[in-house]
């Protein structure tokens, strides 16, 4: 599972990465987690509020830190 977190580097973006990392580890799900800070790339996904989360090329979340429940849902597939 390829997960990208889109954000220009504020606390919310960092917390989102930490959250996904933590839950992926706990569930034992192998993920490639990367951060996208380059604005041009972020806009390429059509995301207007950061942090944004892209899984396997598809935007699944934009704006605010995603809830624990949401992240667990993504990692249960």
């Amino acid at each position, binding site marked *: 599972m390829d997960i990208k977190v889109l954000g220009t580097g504020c606390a919310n973006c960092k917390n989102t990465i930490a959250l996904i990392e933590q839950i992926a580890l706990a569930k034992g799900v192998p993920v490639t987690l990367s951060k996208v800070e380059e604005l041009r790339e972020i806009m390429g996904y059509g995301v*207007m509020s950061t942090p944004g989360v892209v899984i396997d090329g598809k935007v699944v979340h934009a704006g605010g830190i995603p809830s624990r429940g949401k992240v667990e849902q993504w990692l249960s597939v």
Partner: protein
Amino acid sequence: MSTLSLTERTLQLPRLHPKLFLLVATILWWALYQSLSPASEALVAALPVDRNSALGGALQFFLYDTPKVLLLLTAVVFVMGMINSYFTPERTRALLAGKTEGLANVMAASLGIVTPFCSCSAVPLFIGFVQAGVPLGVTFSFLISAPMVNEVALALLFGLFGWKIALLYMGLGLTVAIVAGWVIGRLKMEPYLEDWVRDMPRVQATAGGDAFTLVERIEGGFASVREIVGKVWPYILAGIAIGAAIHGWVPEDFMASIMGKEAWWSVPLAVLIGVPMYTNAAGIIPIVQALLAKGAALGTVLAFMMSVIALSLPEMIILRKVLKVRLIATFAVVVATGILIVGYVFNAVL
């Protein structure tokens, strides 16, 4: 359902009976709120402190204001969290795309109040608006109003100064946002967007199908409270503590000499001091309350608040990625002028 314990059923209330939950929560909140003044007095009376001493006064201030402000903040943030679910940035953009200026500035500034906004989203949001054909001035009206007329500031103003001042701040904030945005639009500064922004592909603004259930909106409200109140409460506590100390120990009219009406330079100074300070109106407002009580002029204080939030140096540095320096400077000058006028008019009128 009958196999759930009472605790479990209470915790599940928002999910199972959302409307009932909202009703019960409102009643409980109101009851708590009304009990604060008598409760804080009773608490101070029980302590070995003279109520009329500086310490007694400061203590009562702190014990009354802290839960009051936190209660208000929680309520307002929760309600706004729910309202936010009706107004995503995509929807706001679709509402504003291609509208003519003037009316659109008013809409943009108003939408800035209810659309969720995090200052690090300022840039993606700005670009997204430009791509969908929202006029530059209209985008600015939104960008000025969104952080400035925010629910935290309004909740605190309401809690500490009453609804008239909160309403006034909101009205003036909207006016500054509308007029400043419109002025910037008139100046035709599109050429001062960074080239790569203007080269971004045009986008069709669609509202997106976000049909949330009431339960999901309530959960949005909870998430908002966790995120905002969770982040801001230490600042509020510190702010109120300092405010309490000023309230108890600083003599009356001390601030009048520095921030009072006679000192004409106090308004520009307040605006200038606000620039390098980064958002977090939360902690400043309680201090502001104590300052006001000691004679600082209301116009100066409001100008300071607006400047802290609307003219934030960190945000302008972030905006540098999409705007050329001249446009950022124009933005800063127009908004600063608006805030200055607000400050002076207020001091003159009240």
